[in-house]
């Protein structure tokens, strides 16, 4: 049903700004889901995903300008190779970063982002420095210009969610969750922590770069301060936190709420950056009120409610206290899916 809605939406909605908003919503949903592989499932607080987004964007810009894959739909063929190449290329730096944890890791990941930005400013022969690179404008009909980008983003989001789902239901996901809860003990139980962390990092970075590539083609202009954006890194994390960073759909829900709201505020208050204050406030609220995010909170409340009602029907009092105390949402088989 979700897929059908996704496919049909741009056909129903005609306004350019509306489809434009949808393109960005899908992009952020995908970015948040990709971030979640590392930040949510593995528990590594990566704050520099803007770097990989920027690498993808620059790769697209340079690729379309120099390699000559041809304009139009053919340019989209570059997206997957860019994602794959970025996933592999980040491995050495991932190995280095993943030797640290928690706050140190967070700081280093930000550092990497600013390093990439500095490279983008200074490797002029490749990136044209602060002038930026323009990507050839896609020759799509003006009336439905956004549609190909919308579907490209939708396909990439679907791929990202598929990867997330596959990770969650596999031994890899179990190992990553163990790393999140207690990495040292996981090592002592024979979990190959180095390996699984690298896989999570590569998947997360690669998918992020894929979105960067589509984005570059869409906005047709790549500039260091714009493509490698600390705010993108933070926004993506906020979405994952809001929706529920341990869930599959949490990041999507978070993006669906935040992206339109952000556009609205940016439009309403102009370029006054007031929306950044709203960002910060929202972050604080989420952490205080919904530390697990929207989806887990609702799920917990629902299970509590259903148990309460079914148990009340059988034994009126004794179990009510139990069911209130018992707030897990795990299946009978003992898995959190």
């Amino acid at each position: 049903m979700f897929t059908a809605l996704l496919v049909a939406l741009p056909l129903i909605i005609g306004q350019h700004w509306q489809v434009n908003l949808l393109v960005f919503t899908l992009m952020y949903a995908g970015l948040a889901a990709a971030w979640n592989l590392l930040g949510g499932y593995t528990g590594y607080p990566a704050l520099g995903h803007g770097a990989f987004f920027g690498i993808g964007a620059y790769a697209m810009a340079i690729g379309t300008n120099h390699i000559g894959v041809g304009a139009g739909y053919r340019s989209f063929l570059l997206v997957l190779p860019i994602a794959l190449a970025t996933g592999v290329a980040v491995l050495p730096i991932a190995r280095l970063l993943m030797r640290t944890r928690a706050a140190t890791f967070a700081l280093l990941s930000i550092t990497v982002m600013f390093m990439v930005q500095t490279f983008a400013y200074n490797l002029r022969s490749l990136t044209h420095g602060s002038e930026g690179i323009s990507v050839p404008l896609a020759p799509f009909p003006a009336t439905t210009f956004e549609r190909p980008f919308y579907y490209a983003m939708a396909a990439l989001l679907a791929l990202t969610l598929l990867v997330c789902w596959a990770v969650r239901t596999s031994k890899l996901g179990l190992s990553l969750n163990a790393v999140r809860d207690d990495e040292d003990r996981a090592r002592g139980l024979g979990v190959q922590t180095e390996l699984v962390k690298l896989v999570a990092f590569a998947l997360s970075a690669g998918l992020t770069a894929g979105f960067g590539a589509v984005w570059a083609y869409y906005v047709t202009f790549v500039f260091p301060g714009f493509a490698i954006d600390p705010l993108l890194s933070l926004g993506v994390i906020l979405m994952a936190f809001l929706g529920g960073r341990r869930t599959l759909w949490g990041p999507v829900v978070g993006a669906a709420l935040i992206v339109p709201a952000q556009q609205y505020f940016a439009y309403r208050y102009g370029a006054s950056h007031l929306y950044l204050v709203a960002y910060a406030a929202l972050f604080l609220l989420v952490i205080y009120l919904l530390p697990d995010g929207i989806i887990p909170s609702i799920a917990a409340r629902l299970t509590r409610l259903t148990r309460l009602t079914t148990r009340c029907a059988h034994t009126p009092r004794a179990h009510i206290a139990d069911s209130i105390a018992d707030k897990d949402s795990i299946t009978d088989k003992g898995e959190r899916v």
Partner: protein
Amino acid sequence: MSTLLAVEGLRKSFGGIRALDECGFEVPEGTVTALIGPNGSGKTTAFNVITGYLPADAGTVAFRGNPVRPDPCRLQRLGLGRTFQQARIFPGLSVLENVVLGRAQPWHALPRLRVSGTDRHRARDLLEEFGLAEHAGSHAGTLSYGQRRLLEFAAVLMGEPVLVLLDEPTAGINPIMIEAMEQHIRRRHAQGVTFLIVEHEMRLVMRLCDPVIVLDRGRLIACAAPAEVQTDPRVLDAYLGD
């Protein structure tokens, strides 16, 4: 009886404090060996150095006759499991998943199902044995402290270890649970698992363990049967001081 674990000349300093000072001892195969000593005598440090959680300043560790580079992941795969003083579990995972994780997987098994049928079957058996079966589906974080200790132990056994290092298995749990823990250790011992146990509960050590290794200020001061250790003047001196 052959030697399963041999430690030689282990040294480890934290700043100016020598936690381990030329520490060496052996764990014979098929025994329940105790590692005791007053607070700060280096018992847990010895565990951490042997299992590779702390790098040693000097010394060697040999497991099953071969010298090993201490690394927790590799040692687990060679058959050495351990528990921690603070009962470490994965609170965000289910009790069943906690046990399943105890079984090491080759890298190519990573894409396989999170909890396979055989995994579930074996983990259920273990949970049954440890009286945790009814909690299989709950978050491990909801368990009591004593149950966490049992769960941690069960997860280690899932890896079918030859030697298990238990760090204060009965610390902070009630007497009934202590008895249960003792029964579990005895049962596994009867099945051929060797144990090295750091323990403060002396009555348990005296009933369960032989030999008893005594450390003081990072050095080995005695290694003998429990009755002998109890009357050893050096041991009494270490515990009572002067």
